[in-house]
């Protein structure tokens, strides 16, 4: 099976501090991968390298057949294919929800405005906030904002979705509505890499679990095996603390 994301021996430093150490990772189309680990283990940095919000210094990252390197055009092409959802939503506060969703399709993918609006409404309906389309981000609750952010990413019709702790900034009662949307998305066949501490969500949708610590991938296993029979002591300790 061909791989849609390949990382080979990726190393990254922040000044002298090494945040990623020899990361090897392969993701096949439609696979769902959940990355967990203690804070500071490099999991966010890893997925931010996949759309080059962070630069890696050594190794290769190949996304959908395109190598991520200095070439700006390649980077923009990959970013248009890789959707990203952030912990802090990062909606554009000066634009309505609908404009948030249509801006990139119109200016990056060059869709006609009408078509972009249709796509946006379709995706907003999918995340169940189509009735909020004309409001501004500041008028929505956290859960609604995060769902709008997911819809915004989906409007680019990405092949891959990256989630960087999408529920960590939400009030507990809003976490479920966002997770529901993500489960729905997973069932629809999207390739997803999710950094999260929501183990219930991981058990439900993940094909593989990855456990990271101190910049290294400590364990990569099928979800069932990961939870029932973790191999490394570090993983066992981590799971015993959060489950």
């Amino acid at each position: 099976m061909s791989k849609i994301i390949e990382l080979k021996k990726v190393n990254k430093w922040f000044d002298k501090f090494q945040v990623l150490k020899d990361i090897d990772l392969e993701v096949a189309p439609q696979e769902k991968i959940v990355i967990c680990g203690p804070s500071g283990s490099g999991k966010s940095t890893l997925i931010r390298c996949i759309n080059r919000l962070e630069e890696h210094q050594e190794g290769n990252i190949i996304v959908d057949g395109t190598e991520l390197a200095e070439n700006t055009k390649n980077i923009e092409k990959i970013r248009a294919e890789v959707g990203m959802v952030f912990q802090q939503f990062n909606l554009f506060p000066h634009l309505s929800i609908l404009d948030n969703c249509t801006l990139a399709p119109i200016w990056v993918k060059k869709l006609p405005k009408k078509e972009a609006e249709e796509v946006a409404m379709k995706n907003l309906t999918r995340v169940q906030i189509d009735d909020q389309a004309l409001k501004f981000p500041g008028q929505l609750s956290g859960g609604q904002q995060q769902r709008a952010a997911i819809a915004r990413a989906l409007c680019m019709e990405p092949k891959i979705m990256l989630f960087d702790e999408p529920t960590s900034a939400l009030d507990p009662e809003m976490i479920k509505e966002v997770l529901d949307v993500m489960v729905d998305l997973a069932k629809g066949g999207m390739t997803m890499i999710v950094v999260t501490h929501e183990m219930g969500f991981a058990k439900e949708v993940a094909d593989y679990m990855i456990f990271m610590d101190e910049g290294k991938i400590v364990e990569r296993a099928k979800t069932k095996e990961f939870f029932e029979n973790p191999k490394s002591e570090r993983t066992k300790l981590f799971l015993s603390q959060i489950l």
Partner: protein
Amino acid sequence: MILTNLKPTKEKINTFLPLGSIFVIFAFLDVLTNTFLNQNITGFLPQTLSYIAPLLLGYIGFYLIRIEFSGIKFLDKLNKNINSSNFNAFLTLLILFIIIKAISPLMNWLILEANFAGSSKDDCTGNGACWVFIKVWFNRLMYGLYPDVEQWRVNSAFILLFALVGIAFFVPQKIKKYFIIFLLFVYPFIGIKLLSGGSFGLVYVETAAWGGLSLTFIISAFAILFCFPIGVLLALGRRSSLPAIRYISIGFIELWRGVPLITVLFMAAVMFPMFLPDGTFIDKLIRVLIAITLFEAAYMAEVVRGGLQALPKGQYEAAKSLGMGYWRMNVLIILPQALKLVIPGIANTLLALVKDTPLIFVVGLMELAGMIGLAKTNPKWLGMAMEGYVFAGLVFWIICYAMSRYSQNLEKKLSTER
């Protein structure tokens, strides 16, 4: 016994309030009659006491009103705002009396004893202002030394501008775009041609003859129009990841910010032509315009940079993650938010620009304040500096206040907060 009687209770409401009011009313009556009717009703008292009598009476009155439980909403509000303590009551009285005292001579000078009719300095016989001066020189204050018969050209240039701006507010969004492009890129050339002439059957009027309020407007409008985009580019340049662009921007901004405008203008007018090859000539007004524009652009750049830095990193990341390149990210996401944040700072810079225009006198160009400087030294009109500068101040204030109101309006309109 007396002390207990001085403490208000709910039963004694009717004693303290009327008594206090009488004291206050009497205090104000004293000041008012003193100021406007020249009658000192406390004249029977020793001089010092008579002088401070209104303060003393008002103070006692305010005290009585303050200690009262009147239950009247208006009085509660008054007590809270201007009469909350002994010190506040004293300050309130003092300020009100000073205002009353000041109004009278001010009104006398401005209007009551001022002269409006006539056509020469000799017609000004009153003690007040000689507005005849402004009336006689009005034409020059507006148009500078622009020939009288050609002044319709200045008028029509401005009428055209205002008409275009006015229409642009009402036309539908789709056409508005073209209106704005026309205003920014075509109108300036039409305007300049109309003013300078030299073709289309218009008589050539050299820029040295331009002046007065119309020159204030011309310089302000051009400088505002061009300093803004240059400032934005400099702000982006200063935050660029390309070292060459960053250092050029920093160098440019720091150079222009570090030099006084008056020096810059002098350089532009006097020194710059020395560096030009023989035979080339750039009009003095254009040199001055470029100098002011670049000078204000440096300030604008720093204001805009403040806005850029206030935006959270997440906005940049979100824009990038959607596949936007540098320019799309900045034009669509970053600048609209950053500029909205710094509207007060932008307004500040532009107001300062308008008020800096009188400095062009150092190179011999005379806008409104410069023309007044010229008129007041005219032998027939010596001693009219006060009238002239009060008038200039008023005109500048109106322009600047209008700009300030517009910026507040814009801020409100663009607000998307809850």
